[in-house]
């Protein structure tokens, strides 16, 4: 019981000291309370962690938690030091890269007859109807009527190299 009380008293004393002076003194007095041991104090060790400056700087750095403070600004990635340029670039990239592109895709989607696809289909159907009416084959291997093609004569082809 006595030991417990002494321990609590020492802890309270240490807390009070550290709160005021920020110097943690850890006396380590090897005092024996045994009745059999009559020796004096054998050793005293004091550990003074003088980290005042580092602790103070850390406390100052994290004291301000205001998200609107320029010091606590989290960059979007466009600039780490110029907040206005960072926000402007972020907004402009999103506007031009997403909003304008959506408008562009919408515009192109509703443009009339992109690449003349509809016209091509109409012309194909008209051509099929014409061929059916004339009794011609629907798909002909000859694009041009062979009877209308004028080929050179054999005499004109003498010496001409045929390459395949």
């Amino acid at each position, binding site marked *: 019981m006595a030991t417990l009380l002494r321990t609590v008293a020492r802890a309270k004393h240490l807390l009070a000291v550290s709160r005021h002076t920020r110097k943690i003194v850890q006396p380590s007095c090897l005092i024996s309370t045994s009745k059999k041991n009559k020796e004096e104090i054998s050793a005293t060790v004091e550990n003074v962690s003088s980290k005042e400056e580092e602790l103070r700087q850390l406390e100052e750095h994290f004291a301000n938690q205001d998200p609107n403070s320029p010091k606590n600004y989290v960059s*979007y990635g466009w600039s780490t030091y110029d907040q206005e340029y960072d926000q402007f670039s972020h907004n402009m990239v999103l506007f*031009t890269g997403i909003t304008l592109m959506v408008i562009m895709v919408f515009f192109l989607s509703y443009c009339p007859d*992109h690449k003349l696809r509809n016209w091509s289909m109409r012309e194909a159907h008209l051509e099929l109807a014409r061929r059916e009416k004339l009794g011609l084959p629907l798909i002909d291997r000859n694009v041009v009527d062979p009877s209308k093609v004028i080929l050179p004569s054999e005499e004109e082809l003498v010496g001409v190299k045929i390459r395949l």
Partner: protein
Amino acid sequence: MLAVLLGLLPSFGEVGCWQFFTLCFLSSPIILYRGSLEGYVMGDFFILDDWSSSLVFLCFWLGALMLMISKPELSGLSVWGVVFCCFLAFSCWNFLWFYVFFELTLVPMAIMILKWGMQPERITATFYMFLYTLGGSIPFLVFLVFVFWGESSFFMGFNADLLGGLGWWGCCAVVVFFVKIPCYPFHLWLTKAHVEAPTTGSMALAGLLLKLGGIGLMRVFLSFGQLSYSVQVFWANVGIWGGVLSSVACLRQVDSKALIAYSSVGHMCLVQLSILSGSSVGWLGALFMMVAHGLSSSGLFGIIGEYYDKVKSRSLMVCSGFEMLFPSSGIWWCMVVFCSMSCPPSLGFLGEVVMGMGVCGSFPLGFIPCFLLLFFFSGASMMVLYTSVSHGSSGSSLLPSFRGVGKFSYLGVFHATPLFLLFFFPGFL
């Protein structure tokens, strides 16, 4: 549109990504809405047809995203230069001017690598880039002189079978596009350049410059290679096997940027095969894949570059624990990787299906197993990348960041969202 693009030049110091987004918005009625079966001819030398218009829009979109990730006051002019040269090259209708702008893209790219690259090896990387591209373009220049000597014009509208008739010279004439794509034997410059380039440079390389090879192949084969089956089969054989080898090489990479670079080689070999198939379905698949690869690879390089800025290492051993450190950005990293893996519903999946139809219809059946191997290994390499970067404990001393959605997340948003939307609405391309 050209005036708006030129108008951005005086303000290059202040050009931010939102100006390029505005340019996308303003130019979309001209680029994406085409009320004609033919292309829009602009002046004497420029045209916006089915292929060039999609790639021009990709140009502007990736320009915005490159400026999003970089400091505009530092690299605004280089990004503008790459976008401007690529825009002119994509929309060119004259072989001489196409050649000029094709080579001119190297200049801003070299400036980016030399000025903002970190390692001393960047000088070697730039040297390789110049050597491969300029060396491969000499036969093409000779071919152009030969064409002008015969036709007295650099116009792209011919329908001749010059390439097939030239035999091995025809094969050599198009080497420059296979260097740019890059086809497997000529891919070394890309792996070096990607590793040494800054993040913006890698995005430009993967997103835009590789597509110059694709569009160049399309233009040359449309004009001169209608019946050049021998040339097509030769390069298709080189391409399919090269794609498989590069995809297998992905699995052994330790450097994250090198892994993505080798996977780019595999994807672009697929594009090369589709273009060489000569079928309209194959060319449509190639276009889908070029747009899909441009967005997904650019997103991969952008996000891994941002992570590299924080972790200070590209090694897959160190770049781990991404999901734990940046969970709000990690979900978009996951989306971009899956799009690169051509998982449905992404544009890459649509592209691979359509490309498969084109290639299987034009080439012998022996191509099919190699094609399937290429699909498998490209997906496997992306899975390796994702698990290495996202999972596991962090190899660095970074603390988790829960800052919500910021610039880091928007990279993934603006890369992944178009890939998903274009799967459902591919008619915009």
